[in-house]
């Protein structure tokens, strides 16, 4: 199957990733743990750009940037440097942003995603380092606000901007690209994606291979898919009405789910890029081999290994390796029970229950899921009871063994079932005769009697088999 891309859609994404797991900002020693702090309490002369202050780059930030570049299969530049990108905006106290221009730390690379027609390669154009601006908060709604409040706590945080080629052909592929990127970055342990503003997206979108429109300020992945769907529809409608798509920048209004044209747009030459004189160039080539050694096994490689080592199918292997935490959890479970059982219970059942409750894998312990799987495989509880135990642990707490006892979920002993079967048959000769005479329904009646006698604790399928066996004796 080849995806024909009927609307000629091309999507390229620019993702800003905030390296919030660093202890300090990019060019100063201010702490990065500002999320629960008062405004303007994590700032210093450097990140405020006060006269006479001098930035010094965070060595670890450079290592992280190289690590990200390598994980995205990018070439790492021999020597890199910073530029000043000049624009005047209140979130940028210096009047310029320190960023990389002609020598980004990471050059061309690629990511493989599940595309519309199987595996699809998305090219990475570049990944470069820059500082985050401060945060603006409009007083009231954006068009009626009385003013803007500015908090510089975020100013100077390390950002990596990852720019893709316009290789995505649908909002769905864009979403998959973002998910894959997030997955890789989680594996690298360079950021906490759950923190506010950890990943922000700008998109370039064109239809019918036409002119591209830039959509800015998308703050979530769900938002990205919605923004793209809206923008593609808008462009197609505009063309159908005889309009022409022009190069422009639009703002995504998350609340209304629409994109709005921004009236003024600074052109690239308006930014008047020039080399940052306060920072010396970085020669990073000789650091690359060392950073490469710190690279973990990445999602694609882990998926292959799970299929090989545990004999899992592609679907299970993929579901279990998307999140590093789930992958590690699975491996711990698989060390204690049959890996295929572990895959079913972790991937199909537990993850479903967690997703439903919007919980992460941290909400369950390896020990508890192992206990549940062992109870099922030892034939002590039914699968239905196992699911009930998992739900109870999540909703009310407690240990599987206690729940089994408290709820009386243990399957009755085989001889009790056998006795119930004998009794049911002995007490209902008419039903037995009907069944032997060809009335299939009578079997259900007898099974029902067995369930009644065991107070529903026998496994229905098992009871049915036992009744059948007895009748066919």
């Amino acid at each position: 199957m080849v995806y024909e891309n009927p609307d000629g859609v091309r999507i390229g994404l620019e993702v800003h990733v905030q390296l919030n797991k660093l202890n300090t900002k990019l060019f100063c020693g201010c702490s990065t743990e500002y999320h629960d702090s008062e405004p303007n309490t994590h700032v210093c002369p450097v990140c405020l750009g006060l006269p006479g202050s001098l930035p010094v780059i965070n060595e670890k930030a450079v290592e992280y940037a190289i690590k990200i570049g390598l994980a995205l299969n990018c070439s790492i530049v021999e020597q890199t440097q910073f530029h000043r990108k000049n624009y005047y905006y209140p979130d940028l106290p210096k009047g310029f942003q320190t960023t990389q221009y002609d020598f980004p730390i990471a050059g061309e690379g690629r990511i493989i995603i599940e595309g519309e027609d199987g595996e699809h390669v998305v090219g990475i154009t570049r990944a470069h380092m820059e500082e985050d601006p401060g945060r603006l908060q409009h007083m009231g709604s954006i068009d009626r606000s009385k003013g803007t409040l500015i908090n510089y706590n975020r100013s100077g945080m390390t950002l990596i901007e990852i720019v893709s080629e316009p290789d995505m052909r649908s909002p769905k592929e864009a979403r998959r690209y973002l998910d894959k990127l997030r997955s890789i970055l989680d594996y690298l342990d360079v950021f906490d994606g759950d923190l506010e503003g950890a990943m922000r997206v700008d998109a370039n979108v064109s239809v019918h291979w036409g002119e591209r429109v830039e959509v800015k300020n998308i703050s979530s992945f769900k938002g990205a898919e919605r923004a793209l769907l809206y923008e593609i529809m808008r462009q197609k409608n505009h063309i159908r009405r005889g309009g022409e798509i022009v190069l422009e920048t639009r703002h995504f209004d998350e609340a209304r789910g629409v994109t709005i044209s921004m009236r003024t747009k600074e052109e690239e030459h308006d930014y008047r890029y020039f080399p940052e004189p306060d920072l010396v160039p970085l020669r990073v080539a000789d650091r690359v081999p060392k950073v490469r050694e710190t690279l973990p096994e990445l999602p694609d490689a882990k998926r292959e290994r799970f299929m090989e080592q545990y004999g899992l199918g592609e679907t299970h292997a993929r579901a279990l390796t998307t999140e590093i935490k789930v992958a590690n959890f699975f491996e711990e479970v698989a060390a204690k029970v049959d890996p295929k059982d572990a895959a079913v219970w972790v991937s199909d059942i537990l993850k479903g229950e967690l997703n439903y409750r919007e919980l992460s894998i941290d909400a369950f312990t390896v020990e508890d899921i192992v206990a549940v799987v062992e109870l099922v495989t030892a034939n002590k509880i039914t699968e239905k009871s196992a699911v009930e135990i998992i739900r109870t642990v999540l909703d009310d707490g407690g240990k599987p063994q206690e729940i089994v006892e408290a709820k009386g979920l243990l399957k009755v002993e085989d001889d009790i079932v056998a006795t119930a079967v004998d009794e049911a048959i002995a007490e209902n000769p008419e039903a037995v005769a009907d069944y032997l005479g060809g009335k299939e329904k009578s079997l259900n009646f007898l099974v029902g009697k067995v369930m009644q006698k065991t107070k529903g604790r026998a496994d229905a399928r098992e009871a049915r088999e036992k009744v059948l066996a007895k009748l066919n004796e």
Partner: protein
Amino acid sequence: MITKEEVEHVGWLARIEIDAKESDAYAEKLNSVLDYFGQLDEVDTEGVEPTYHVADIVNVFRKDEVTASMPQEEVLANTEHKQEGNFKAPKIM
């Protein structure tokens, strides 16, 4: 050649109001600066390695260790435009 319009455009980029008289004056001054750079352009640099920085050093790094930030009062000390610990600016569209 820098024109009056370019001066006005740069003024807009910097959010500085420049009136007609000023833009004429700036255009003239900036052109004389450009003339000087034009002279530098005539220097023969054949075979000279480009320099990326005035000082011939690379790799000045800082360890990822937290140092003290400024107290909020001090951060806001130079402005009258503040509210609840934030700087306050006119509305931004």
